């Protein structure tokens, strides 16, 4: 017998059927691990899209020649470029940290945790992943915008 069935239901649980996009975005509250997961997907898609459109042209410019490198530095100092770069830096760091979390789960790390503690495990490891990637994003962002 699980705790959920034993606990008297104080109010009826909300049901979501045939969910629409607004419901997904605003009504249905994903657990933290779910947010990490969907953002892993979003960040991956973003990076894949940006690779030949933005990242490779910028990289090609930067390594083309000393003069090309100067021009790259001018592009990169434009605020819009910096904002785009910061979004992609976040995307990389989020994808990286969340990805390591999935790889560790694939190695069955945490698999022996009691079923009643799974939720805590998933939430805590998601929180660690979010913390590391966001702190690093802030550090890279401060560096990018010239705070140090």
């Amino acid at each position: 017998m699980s705790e959920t069935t034993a606990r008297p239901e104080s109010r009826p649980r909300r049901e979501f059927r045939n969910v629409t996009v607004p419901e997904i975005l605003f009504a249905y509250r994903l657990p933290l691990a779910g947010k990490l997961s969907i953002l892993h997907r979003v960040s991956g898609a973003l990076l894949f899209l940006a690779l030949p459109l933005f990242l490779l042209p910028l990289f090609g410019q930067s390594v083309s020649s000393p003069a090309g490198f100067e021009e790259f530095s001018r592009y990169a100092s434009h605020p819009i470029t910096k904002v785009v770069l910061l979004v992609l830096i976040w995307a990389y760091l989020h994808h990286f940290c969340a990805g390591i979390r999935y790889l560790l789960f694939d190695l069955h790390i945490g698999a022996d945790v009691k079923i009643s503690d799974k939720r805590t495990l998933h939430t805590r490891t998601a929180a660690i992943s979010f913390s590391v990637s966001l702190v690093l994003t802030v550090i890279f962002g401060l560096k990018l915008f010239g705070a140090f």
Partner: protein
Amino acid sequence: MASVQKTGQRRHVVGAHYGVRDFLIQRVTAVILIVYTVILGVMALLTPSFTYENWVGLFNFRWGTFPMGQILATLAVLAVAYHGWIGVRDIWMDYIKPAGLRLFLQALTILWAVGSAVYAAQILWSL
């Protein structure tokens, strides 16, 4: 028990070659990219100043005559292309149900991935 019809004119199109093989390749390429990120990160931290020569040197350094920097970067690019193909294909398989549209998007994704890899290789090997 009714058997599932797997051949014939109403065969369900899902896109081939998914399953444990791609599951493994997605993870192997992920590990390759973690390793390359760490290598590049450490080399960048050891670089005294952000000049053109130091920047290019991260990608075209040699061990003797062996073009180690370019080889590592090219392997990372190939890993990105394959990893990205599997990930984006999973997105189409989850959200795009009409088989024709899904196949079109999957074909587009392959072109995108291969095109990106060729583009990156062209930049790297002209250093």
